[in-house]
């Protein structure tokens, strides 16, 4: 694992990507203190300057409520990254242990767990998040819950296949026959060796979480004003977007760049995964 991280940072592309993400995150944390328009982040509106194209005073222009697009676009990174990390964190936290347990258990338990997992996976991609946010009420936190609930089965699957593969290895069978407990096997053998594929999936999922959350905001089930989130900003621009391209363009651009970075990082993990094999 350490080897992976090392080779990671030696590659230019993935280190640029990581740098971008970290930089964006820090910027989004500090922007309320630096920007002259920081109040816009908390819902301050100024209709007299609404709908202005990019200029020197407003680098990304203003939206239909007069908010400074640059400030709120950067700030939205904070929330979108929060979603990305939150979703991945919960999905992994719930899915991986279940999957690993399933992989080292007897056939019966494994079957049952996998059937239930398949049941979850049978739902079309967005239906569960939509249903959950519709029931719980739209908000950023509920978005995290909704997406996690629909994604953790993937981690169950990955973790399970990893633990199946590993627990069938010779030295692990020996360990088992020597009476090692399931927990011990998972901790010592399965876990360390499954990290890479899980990380691969996690990085890519982080990106997709942002896109999915944006999709939910689009329907109105995601973040709510005055929260700022890229998908929400694009949605809010719809009534005038033909005449105000900047309100659509910049949030989407940043969303795109962020997801690209996550994908690059995920790819890097995947390359190492193949190398490890």
């Amino acid at each position, binding site marked *: 694992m350490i080897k992976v991280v090392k080779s990671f940072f030696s590659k230019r592309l993935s280190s640029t990507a990581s740098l971008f993400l970290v930089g964006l995150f820090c910027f989004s944390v500090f922007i309320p203190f630096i920007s002259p328009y920081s109040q816009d982040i*908390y*819902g301050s509106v100024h*209709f007299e300057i609404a709908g202005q194209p990019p200029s020197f005073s407003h680098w990304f222009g203003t939206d239909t*409520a007069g908010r400074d697009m640059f400030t709120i676009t950067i700030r939205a990174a904070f929330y979108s990254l929060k979603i990305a990390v939150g979703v991945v964190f919960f999905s992994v936290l719930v899915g991986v242990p279940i999957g690993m347990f399933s992989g080292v258990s007897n056939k019966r338990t494994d079957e049952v767990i996998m059937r239930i997992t398949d049941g979850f996976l049978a739902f079309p991609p967005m239906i569960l998040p939509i249903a959950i946010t519709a029931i719980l009420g739209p908000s950023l936190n509920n978005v995290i819950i909704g997406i996690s609930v629909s994604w953790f089965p993937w981690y169950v699957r990955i973790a399970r296949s990893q633990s199946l593969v590993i627990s069938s290895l010779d030295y692990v069978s020996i360990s088992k026959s020597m009476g090692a407990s399931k927990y011990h096997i998972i901790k010592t053998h399965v876990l360390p060796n499954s990290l890479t594929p899980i990380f691969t999936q996690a990085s890519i999922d982080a990106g997709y979480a942002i896109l999915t959350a944006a999709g939910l905001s689009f329907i*109105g089930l995601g973040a709510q004003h005055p929260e700022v989130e890229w998908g929400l900003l694009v949605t809010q621009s719809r*009534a*005038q977007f*033909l005449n105000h391209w900047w309100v659509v363009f910049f949030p989407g651009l940043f969303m795109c760049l962020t997801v690209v970075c996550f994908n690059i990082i995920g790819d890097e993990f995947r390359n190492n995964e193949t190398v490890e094999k």
Partner: protein
Amino acid sequence: MERTILRATLLFLFCASLFQINCSSDNVKNNKVFVIATYDDVKDWDPATAFSLEIFPMSNMYEPLLWYDAGVKPGRFVPALATSYSKSEDGLVWVFNLRKNVFFHDGSKFDAEVVKFVVERNKKLNGGASYIWSSVSKIIINSPHQITFTLSSPVPFDKIVSSQYGAWMYSPLIDSISKDSLNYGFGSGTGPYQLKKWARNKYILLDKFDKYWGGWNKRDHYNSVLIQIATESSTRFQMIKNGIADYAVLIPNQLIETLENSSEVSVSYHPSWVNEFYLLNTKKYPTNNLWFRRAIASSMDRSVLSNYIYKNTAVESKGLIPQSIPLFVAPDSLIEFSLDIAKNYLNKSGLDLTSLKTDLSYVSTYEQYRLTAFLLLDNLKKIGIDLDLRPGLWSTNWDKAKNLDTAPNIISMAWWPTVSSPSDWLFALYNSQENPLFNLSYYSNSVVDSLTRKAWELETTEPKVAQDLYKEIQNILIDDCVVIPAVDVNVSSVRKKKISGLKSNPAYSTIFVYDLSRN
């Protein structure tokens, strides 16, 4: 290599063929056809119960006893199928003289029997707007062209017979048509145009009715009306821009703005009888506190609404009803915008100021509501109140609002009348309701209830007194701070420049093609 070249050529040809057909098909649109581009289809062809977009074809196919012309000041009644009328001193007995030599599209004659038939049938069906006839207790036919209505209470019956819904006179042969064929398109009225063809969700074609009593030599009339259904606003926009449509309904603002410098299309704004406002929940914390409500009302900046958010699509409200409604009267004062005064009110409220939260429900698909919500959120923040926004579709919002547990503190509302009277607003929105239907402020005040009843019944006999009562009622409602008025909406008329004869009449949300002429 050759494969790539081949592919590229094909792609190029493909693209070229598309752009060739940039402007839509230039079919021979006989220029005697008036084309209206609208957004949805007729759902109910029965003139007794239709209550929505049916107004477009029906206002050209049918006629009521009287029209109401609200485009002139003061408004006046115009004879339609009734040439004159009179009422008794107490306003309970109304006599109408009917127009002679009027025929329906199917050939049957129009007379007093028909009128009786229509009113009784509407009452029996009890759908749509048929409740407007509820005050009719007796109908007497004096002669083939004179009919007397006896009412149970002295309501302004002339307003009722000129309603845009539920007041059309239609052929008695409707009974011999099965309910199914009503679904396949049926219409027999006395109006200038008759139903020629209906292609569901595609178009409605009306042809001129030669035997129309008004004759066809008043001007250079249109011979047909084609109501095209295009659900996407951008398609309607393209139709009007490319000259295929003569009149387009509901074009979004961002597209209207691009028509400003057009040489063929003109955009104008006219007053309508729609207004928008915000109801405050008087039974739910913290809006159940009078001073808290007043604080919120003082935080609504109507000038920003009209100058920036709505621009020429609306004007500031001057009362609880639109300024163009007959018998409109402004209350003594509306609560003006002032954040200092709002803070004062908050202090007076006696509420715990450290964590004041309230919520606002609005229709998510309407941009102006969203911007107003943002404005209110910002202003309330400045006086220390947290506003939770709850956008949603109207049906969901309304449903939640009807139950006190799920109801919001503030809800956006739009209202337009079925009968052209201030009482329409008052009955529906502010009169006591056990299970609120539209009284979403949960307001119950027996004084308001009785005053509204009184005013409505005095409208015909003593209009000035009625008007004073309407003023008094509004004063009470403002004082109790049940509602925050916002704007009176303007209707936009997007049409070809070379059409003349278009008049503004907020009483009917439609366009009367018979009155138009081509240049």
